[in-house]
């Protein structure tokens, strides 16, 4: 008998007179000790589905026209209220330990009263969220937060018992010296540690079902690998069921027993992980899997446009970007944060260099320092023969069009007040490219066509575009001044896989057409393997390994590179 049985679940979200069918007839079931993965692109309704199950959607907005969410509720006896239809006690089929006095009731979470829901939430169904930075309350210590959850569901426990259990929970998630860290506040922990605390909090009450909504998306790959390991480990020990929501097929391959692929509120395909991943039936699943960078066909010949002997376009020597740490009454500089620390880099004409590293390793700062958007503390950056460091803003202005940048966040990379036409023609005007306005608009149209957007997009505002379209426009803006060198700062990391695949293919095409040199900053190893000619691995401001991509990824020498590569969740199940 399955623990959670979702049948024909529909969730409608309404705002004003608009109604969105966020979840549209979803059915699946999860057994004890099993992991069910809901996978889909952004906006496919996977999070709403999870929130519907635990009934956390705002009541005024969400409604469920049909469907049922049946949950086997193991309660401690004595709490049984008459309103719940109790079913036969299937303790016999129960392979895992359940309290002696427990009884099981099958309840429909959609129709259950708030009172009973509160008892279920946290105690029987726990949830962990995506954003580790905001899901813990910053004004309570982590121990107190776990104790509070415990006391709520187990009022019979004394303070000491609660504390002991909380420490135990922290130990379970491998927080080192848990008893000592009991009184730490969330800001004293790293992102990965906070996510561990969230898991500890969710597990403290020994739930039967854990709902994990993209729990590792905000984390670095090495941390992600640890957390996934931990979750698998805890599951096998405690036998809880996990509803795991993700957009990453690599994570699905690692975690799931069963998988459901969601598209616009519907599950289009479900089955065991192996069958779905190796033999997808539905066109959408096939399309998604084909778009995963590992599976992208290298259409362009690998070394096209890349010549080992080509002269370097950008050359950085002993580049340092240090941010001062000021302390005391007089704000004296006591130390520096070395974001970029003695980097030597040479990017050859026509090549794509990938800059890989985990968050906070200084890769973005390095990219900006090369473009002189961040003032380097010392060292030199040369564009061809031209020295860039030490130039004033006015001296840099004529050089700017030759070196461009495209950004990560599609939300903030375009000025919301300006039509696309202004965004694209203004740099040309500032540098005297094109004779008059009409000529410049004509050039803008040509560049838009190159990024596969149509002409009438010129007259729209950024808010009318999707994330992928905005990234293309951002790319068009970088291309408009006909630069030699572009820094692409994580330009695909905010995009869905299928859109990411399109943008990557586009980049390769443009590189060929224009003989561009790219510095591609990313944390996604699969993208690196697909796209780049050379790879540079950064850690704590320093370059730890550097070389041709095939060599760095195929035969890593540095231990950090090896760790990084091992942590990447691979689609390959073997």
């Amino acid at each position, binding site marked *: 008998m399955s623990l959670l049985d979702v049948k024909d679940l529909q969730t409608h979200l309404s705002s004003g007179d608009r109604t969105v069918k966020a979840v549209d007839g979803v059915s699946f079931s999860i057994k004890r000790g099993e992991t069910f993965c809901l996978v889909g692109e952004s906006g496919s309704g996977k999070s709403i589905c999870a929130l519907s199950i635990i009934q956390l959607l705002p009541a005024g907005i969400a409604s469920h026209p049909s469907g049922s969410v049946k949950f086997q509720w193991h309660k401690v006896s004595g709490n049984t209220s008459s309103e719940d239809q109790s079913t036969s006690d299937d303790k016999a089929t129960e392979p895992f330990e359940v309290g002696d006095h427990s009884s099981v009731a099958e309840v429909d979470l959609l129709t259950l009263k708030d009172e009973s829901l509160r008892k279920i939430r946290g105690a029987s169904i726990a949830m962990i969220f995506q954003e580790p930075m905001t899901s813990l309350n910053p004004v309570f210590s982590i121990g107190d937060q776990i104790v509070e959850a415990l006391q709520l569901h187990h009022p019979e426990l004394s303070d000491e018992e609660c504390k002991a259990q909380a420490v135990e929970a922290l130990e379970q998630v491998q927080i080192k010296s848990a008893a000592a860290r009991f009184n730490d506040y969330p800001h004293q922990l790293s992102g990965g540690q906070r996510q561990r605390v969230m898991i500890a909090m969710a597990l403290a009450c020994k739930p039967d079902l854990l709902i994990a909504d993209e729990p590792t998306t905000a984390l670095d790959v090495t941390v992600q690998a640890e957390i996934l390991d931990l979750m698998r480990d805890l599951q096998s020990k405690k036998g809880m069921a996990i509803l795991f929501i993700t957009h990453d097929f690599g994570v699905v391959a690692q975690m799931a027993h069963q998988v459901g692929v969601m598209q616009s509120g519907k599950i289009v395909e479900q089955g065991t992980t192996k069958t779905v991943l190796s033999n997808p039936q539905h066109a959408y699943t096939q399309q998604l899997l084909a778009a995963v960078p590992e599976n992208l066909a290298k259409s362009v010949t690998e070394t096209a446009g890349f010549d080992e002997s080509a002269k370097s376009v950008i050359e950085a020597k002993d580049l340092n970007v240090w941010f001062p740490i000021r302390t005391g009454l007089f704000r004296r500089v006591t130390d520096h944060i070395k974001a970029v620390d003695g980097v030597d880099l040479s990017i050859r004409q026509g090549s794509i260099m990938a800059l890989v590293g985990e968050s906070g390793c200084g890769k973005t700062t390095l990219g900006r320092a090369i473009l002189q958007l961040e003032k380097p503390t010392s060292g030199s950056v040369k564009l061809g023969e031209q020295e860039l460091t030490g130039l004033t803003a006015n001296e840099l202005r004529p050089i700017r069009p030759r070196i461009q940048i495209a950004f990560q966040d599609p939300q903030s990379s375009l000025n919301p*007040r*300006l039509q696309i036409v202004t965004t694209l023609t203004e740099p040309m005007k*500032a540098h005297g490219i094109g004779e008059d*306005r009409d000529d410049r608009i004509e050039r803008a149209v040509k560049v838009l066509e190159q990024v596969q957007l149509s002409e009438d997009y010129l007259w729209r505002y950024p808010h009318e575009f999707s994330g992928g379209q905005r990234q293309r426009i951002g790319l068009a803006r970088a291309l408009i001044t006909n630069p030699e060198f572009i820094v692409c700062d994580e330009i695909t990391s905010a995009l869905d896989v299928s859109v990411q695949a399109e943008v990557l293919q586009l980049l390769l095409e443009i590189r060929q057409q224009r003989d561009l040199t790219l510095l591609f900053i990313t944390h996604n190893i699969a993208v690196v393997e697909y796209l780049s000619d050379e790879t540079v691995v950064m850690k704590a401001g320093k370059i730890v390994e550097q070389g041709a991509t095939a060599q760095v990824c195929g035969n890593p020498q540095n231990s950090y590179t090896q760790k990084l590569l091992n942590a990447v969740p691979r689609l390959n199940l073997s």
Partner: protein
Amino acid sequence: MTKQPRRSASYSKRILSSAFSGWGARIGLAWVVILAFVACFSPLLANSMPLMVSEGGQVSMPILRYLSAEDLMLMVLFIAVLLLWKMPLKFSTKAAIAASSALIALLVGLAILSPPKTIIYDQFREKATAGNYEWQVLPPIPYSPSDYSRDFGDNSLKAPMVTQKQFHLMGTDSTGSDVASRMVHASRVALSIGFIATGISMIIGIIIGGQMGYFAGRFDMIGMRIVEVFEAIPVLFLLLAFVAFFGRSVYILMIIIGVTGWSGYARYIRAEFLKLRKQDYVQAAIASGLPLRSILFRHMLPNGIAPVLVVASFGVAAAILTEATLSFLGLGPVEAPSWGSMLNEAVKSSVFNWWMAVFPGGAIFLTVFSYNLMGEALRDAVDPQLSRKAGVVS
């Protein structure tokens, strides 16, 4: 190539339409538009001289001789804004057309209009009673604000009355002049002091705050100290001192309120610019090598101005209140009627003259209330988190 298939709503348009979709902001806007109309056309609405007379078969408009260049400019400005309101033009072009037409009207007015310094209202009344006019068209309120000596006997401080002989909708004040007429003419002072004082503060605040935010560092530190110095100045007492030294001119009030009030705007703009400076599109503008002027005023200012406009709408209300306070204390501008000074008269004599309190007090209340309503709606529209909560109201 330059054809524009469709123009979609810009960000500012969306903000404005969502701000003015609620009834609160619409009522506020309606009152301010009415007030602006009354202020611009006050000589035609309340005047002791007829608008049009027929004297011995000759039709003439005596009021035209007495219009000043300022009156002409305001009327032209109001009509221009009204005509341009729904025109499919860019906001900047509209503003330029309105401003230039007002300027031309002012220059033309200065060239051809020369209103006499003193006006003897009695000449019209004498002619009318003598039967010299075959017919005459009087303004809706047939009294000038400073027309004291009408031949109706004792007129001072009378409650509202509507009789054959005397037609005072809002009563008369201690000098015997018509309160309704004074109310109409005082709306000019109220509106202009709000707009001009706030305009001065905003311009100073944006220039100083913008540079503080963009350049940061040492410039920012010095700037903030100056801001703190200005925030420490008690405006009302400074105004009292200035009034004592330099006389009671409405222009001095505007300038002082404007020059001391910029620190709040500077703070807001500085905070916005500090935030915007690190935004990707500003970085992209820098990376594209755009000139500093364009980065500051095209890419940053329009994105950072919204909170300042919200503060400004409250600032207008505050400036009106300051002027009313000064006038109430008897230190307001002397040359023009003002709501505050009328309020003052309500409590001057031993009797409570209710009409002297209700009408000007109500006008001040409604005006300040309207600006606050609009400011509130703007703030909700600018801040999406607030607007979701406030969605219940509209």
